[in-house]
């Protein structure tokens, strides 16, 4: 694009605010400061609209148009007008306008590639990504974002409000509808980081494959339902409990051993300031112990505690696993 499009004053009523085809950012937020700024200094940067057959469709500056409307002081607004035959250029500008102002959120990125995909394929998008997205995107990543855009609307809402990470969303695209629906339902009731969400996806799908049960059957299990229906104000804690439940289902023996050793450690170290370091996954036979001290007396004291632990039955239990 080499030429700038003209700025014209158009009637606010001619703007099709209901046509959100170019909208990349959905979060509206508080408009009061923007409204005050426009009232004080005027519209510094005019919004862009596309001159469609049905009226002027907003391309960028949705919030500015809303702010001017809320002022109720004018019937007209200055806008940069994109010609009727420039829908693809409008799409590119809608994305670039946001991407060059700040980093796009995962949901915005998904919406952006979906919009652009009407005019170009992933390879073309990748080729122009630096000028449109302000960063290099590869073709595979763009294809995976397009797959995410095809997830059910509930997934997009979760992505929008941060309850679903982009990596887990991309992983979801590889599953059937029932699996996706179950996982979306779980993620809508908990809070978990992307890493934990990936763990939940892996555990749930692998338990189903291993036991030849459907995701719905696993979801309906009393144990999982009890966690999901728990009345708690901390969705993060609920997320951890779901993850632990599924991990126990996926790795029953490992988790049982972990639980047993944890109980033994609790008894062994009760009232002591020593730390015992367990071998990861109990594969190695090398254990560690550490303590802090500041004086010789403290050191002697800790050494005595250490010696006394040697005969503790729980230490033997830990070592025998």
């Amino acid at each position: 694009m080499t030429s700038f499009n003209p700025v014209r004053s158009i009637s606010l009523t001619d703007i099709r605010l209901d046509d959100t085809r170019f909208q990349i950012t959905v979060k509206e937020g508080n408009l009061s400061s923007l409204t005050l700024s426009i009232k004080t200094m005027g519209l510094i940067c005019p919004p862009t609209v596309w001159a469609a057959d049905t009226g002027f469709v907003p391309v960028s500056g949705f919030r500015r148009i809303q702010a001017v409307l809320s002022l109720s002081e004018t019937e007209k607004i200055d806008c940069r007008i994109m010609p009727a035959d420039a829908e693809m250029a409008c799409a590119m500008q809608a994305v670039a306008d946001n991407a060059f102002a700040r980093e796009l959120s995962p949901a915005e990125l998904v919406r952006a590639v979906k919009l652009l995909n009407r005019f170009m394929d992933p390879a073309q998008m990748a080729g122009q990504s630096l000028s449109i997205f302000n960063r290099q995107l590869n073709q595979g990543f763009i294809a995976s974002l397009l797959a995410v855009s095809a997830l059910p609307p509930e997934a997009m809402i979760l992505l929008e409000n941060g309850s679903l990470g982009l990596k887990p969303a991309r992983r979801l695209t590889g599953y059937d509808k029932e699996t996706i629906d179950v996982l979306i339902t779980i993620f809508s009731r908990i809070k978990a980081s992307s890493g934990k969400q990936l763990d939940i996806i892996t555990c749930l799908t692998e338990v189903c494959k291993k036991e030849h049960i459907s995701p719905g059957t696993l979801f309906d299990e009393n144990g999982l339902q009890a966690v999901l229906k728990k009345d708690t104000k901390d969705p993060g804690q609920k997320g951890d409990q779901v993850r632990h439940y599924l991990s126990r289902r996926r790795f029953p023996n490992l988790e049982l051993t972990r639980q047993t050793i944890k109980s033994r450690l609790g008894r062994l170290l009760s009232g002591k300031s020593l730390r015992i370091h367990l071998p990861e996954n109990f594969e190695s036979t090398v254990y560690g112990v550490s303590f802090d001290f500041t004086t010789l007396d403290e050191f002697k004291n800790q050494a005595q505690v250490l010696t006394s632990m040697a005969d503790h039955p729980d230490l033997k239990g830990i070592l025998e696993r």
Partner: protein
Amino acid sequence: MTIKQVVMDSSLEVCQEIDEILFRLSLKPETVADPRMVYDRINQAEDPISEAKSLLYITRNKGAVVRPCPGTSHYTCCDYTILHTGTFCTMDCAYCILQAYFHPPILQYFAGLDQIKQSLTHLFSQNRIFRIGTGEYTDSLIWERFTPGPRFLVNLFAKQSNCLLELKTKTVNVESLLNLDHNRKTVLAWSVNTPAIIGSEEKGATRLETRLKAAKRCEAKGYPLAFHFDPLVLYDGCEADYAGVVHDIFSHVRPESIVWISLGSFRFMPALKSIIEKRFPSSTICYGEFILGLDNKMRYFKPLRIQLYQKLVTLIQEYAPNVRVYFCMEDQEVWEKTLGFFPKEKGELGHLLDRSAVSYCRLNPDLL
């Protein structure tokens, strides 16, 4: 899988060995000057691994013909020596690590029996015992059907007294070996598994019963035998099934014919998991209770491995108290809790197996 194409390194001269391969495969070879043409063809296929199983590339070994087994860190290795005669396999086992090991996998036959003879002659002249196998990067006996390699090796090893050849297989391709004068220097070894695992995970491999019948035929011809329970796969009812395999082995062959039995549970590089999921969507083999081992390979949670090993070892020792049982890549805790001892010193496990080799294969005992 059937070999459908033969591609030949253009620098190879047609000789009796290559003539035999082409005749037995009844395929006209295409020659290439650069192996990258083969790599590209395989990489461009929708499923490169399947493609690689149907394309035979005949070339010359441009690396080491004989090399020590790479083993793995933190776990005890048996100090095996690998004879590098070819790569990859025509069978299609879901758990096969070669799917992830080679980039890309290529079914290669290293022509040049003279080259192999030269390398082995060097080993034959040394004052130590070698246990040598061709089954590390391929199945030893898929090649028996269309190459002279296996019978050449059996004949060659028969004439010396410090090296044992182990041909490890899941096939029953022993016909051309049966009447050779092997001088007990070749051990014919079968990887065994439960009928359930063979049926679901070992596509293209022979049934257990068929393998054991082949072993019995080889036993009748005086060949020493070995069995490898590797990979042991944990599933509901696996203990009874593996007990059945032990019973079946000793229903077919005598304990005195068995040089050793190894046990190794399923372990894999993490990269293999996605390959199995993609190529074998109905397989559940990678959904066991795996943890990341000390060597960065996925392994069953140790108490589960030990539990199965204990059952198997006890049972094997009931049938064959004198047969050497050993673990492939396990640690001190596993050894002690199952076999009651651990070959702690460097080379100790290798020495134990050398003793079996000397005893069963009539190698020179002065070299122990």
